[in-house]
């Protein structure tokens, strides 16, 4: 993930081979919009206007069509996010097992509400729907990793271990 100040005017994929590979999997280029956006987000951390323009160019569509798609899915971030995205599950099991308390705890600790990022760009807090790990509620997904059966204390330890 890149740092917070990367407002670049242009965007290029670091690995053009991956782009070609994605394009080769679809009968028409427009269909590659979603995977190309995913690839760009892994590289940049979010979908900037420059990313939209680049994807539109590759898929031969209007930037507005790419924005259609990018703004539709909540997992595409249209703003710069923290290095660690704390995704607290809100669905039934987690909720019953104290997910709300975890959200409040993070809010108290870092002064950020859901959808907000700490000023140092380290953490972004998000409420998300079912992460599919109801048996080990409550669950927090940090970037691509699940952290299960959390309490405030374990969460604190976890957060401190993150650099």
């Amino acid at each position, binding site marked *: 993930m890149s740092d917070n100040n990367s407002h670049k005017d242009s965007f290029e994929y670091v690995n053009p081979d991956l782009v070609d590979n994605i394009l080769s999997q679809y009968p028409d280029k427009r269909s590659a919009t979603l995977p190309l956006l995913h690839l760009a987000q892994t590289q940049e951390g979010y979908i900037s*206007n420059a990313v939209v323009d680049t994807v539109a160019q590759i898929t031969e569509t*209007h*930037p507005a069509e790419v924005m*259609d798609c990018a*703004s539709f899915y909540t997992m595409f971030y249209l703003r710069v996010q923290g290095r660690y995205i704390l995704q607290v599950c809100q669905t039934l099991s987690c909720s019953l097992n104290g997910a709300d308390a975890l959200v409040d705890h993070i809010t108290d600790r870092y002064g950020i509400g859901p959808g907000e990022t700490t000023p140092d760009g380290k953490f972004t807090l998000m409420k998300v729907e079912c992460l599919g790990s109801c048996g080990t509620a409550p669950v927090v997904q940090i970037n691509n990793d699940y952290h299960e059966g959390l309490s405030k204390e374990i969460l604190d330890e976890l957060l401190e271990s993150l650099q």
Partner: protein
Amino acid sequence: MPLLKIDNAELEVESGITVLQAATANRIEIPHYCYHPALETVGSCRMCIVQIEGMPKLQVSCNTFVGEAPPDKKIDEKYDMVVHTQTELVKQGRKNVLEFLLLNHPLDCPVCDQAGECFLQDYAFKFGNAHSRFEEEKRVRPSEYLGSQIVINQNRCIMCTRCVRFTRQISGTGELFVQKRGYDFKISALEDQPLDNLLAGNVTDICPVGALLSTDYIHKNRIWNLHEQPSVCQDCSVGCNINVFYQKDRIFRVSPRENHDANGYFICDIGRYGFHRFEEIERMTSPMRRDEEELTEIQWDEAIKVVAKNLSDAKEKIVFVASPFHTNETNFMLGRFQKGFFGALPLIEEEGITYPSGFSINSDRSPNHRGMNDVCPSILEDMASEIDQQNIKVMYILDDGVDRELDQEWKEILMKMDFVVVQSYALTEVAESAHIILPGLAPFEREGTVTNDQGRVQWLRPSLPLKGKARPDWRIIMEVVNTMGKQELSYSDVGEILAEMGKCFPAYEGVSLFRLGDYGLSINGKVKSS
């Protein structure tokens, strides 16, 4: 061809068209929002649902195609498809759809500019419930500018996405998109690319509700106070069909009128907002004579006498300057001055644009260049040298109007003249060099026919009353010709001139205002007279 039954009507339709198209073509009303014949079908509003026999659920008629059924599957042994649009199930379905579309609608018809021509209003009245069961708080969102002249009222939007599809398929500029989804979705323009193309105004016409509004018309008037006059746009040689909405002596709005032989469904913003440039100009409302450097008002009788005398004295040493901005009839009348030379000012050309959909704005910005050439006796190619050779000192000019900027060559030509008559509606550069100015009519006051670049003759109809002592241009010429004494013309309206024109120019034979109607006639294929 498949045999289709819609309610009680038996229709034989082409295979492959949709149920909605078949119904519309046969004047059976199926309410719809997102479907627009010029745009790709998406079937998202669900308003056009109908019941089709053999299909388990209500179907969207805009995206259900009519085809041939195998012999053993035919209904009543002859119909390929049987559609019901008036059953209880359909009626209830429409009510439900409308209830959803109106969930967050502010019901602000009294202050909405679309009221009176709003499909949400019409259909809710005709097909909807009087009440909503929605008791929660409505979603309220601020209005936004999508472009410099387009405002969106997000609360009234029903997300039919006609505007979005327009920017992608018709203008090809792609400024608009649907942002987010579900309860949060809304129409947005890209941050760095506002909706400012030359076709942008059309989104306000295709918007079936009061969401997209033009800042030019917003809160100016109510549609039921305005008169609607079908006419033709005069801002380029495409000759787009328009409706002019006016009240008393003021135009409030110009909107496109469907004509597949001219403009299709749309017009450009040059034509849409072009009427404003005639509002501020100082109009010529009385004949004027130049005494020394001053222009003084004179009476019509006197003006015509002076003009007639000077023209008679000049014998054949006169140039009559025709205008591609004037109607065929006016230019034809100019040809009734039988002795003299005929010329025209150089074409006004600007950048022409053709959009991906085929809609184009021509570089020739005069409405009637083709017509002028058709009905005027041979127009000199090189007028300047002819004037020198023949030592011509008298000129009679039909003024192009406020769009004309004179070039140096023309300024010099006009300087050389001893006597210049200009027929104009404003004190233009040309009129400033006149010895006599005869006040004619401005573009939205004129009546007559114009011929577009494709050879389509169309009826230009007036929407504004005459101003002051101004007279129709063809009548002024007729009076001058009569006063000169060699001929006695007695046309009482443009229709009679048109009939006379048909006798002189075979291409226009048989063309009458009645036959032109709203959509015009093509004169291609007829022999063009020289």
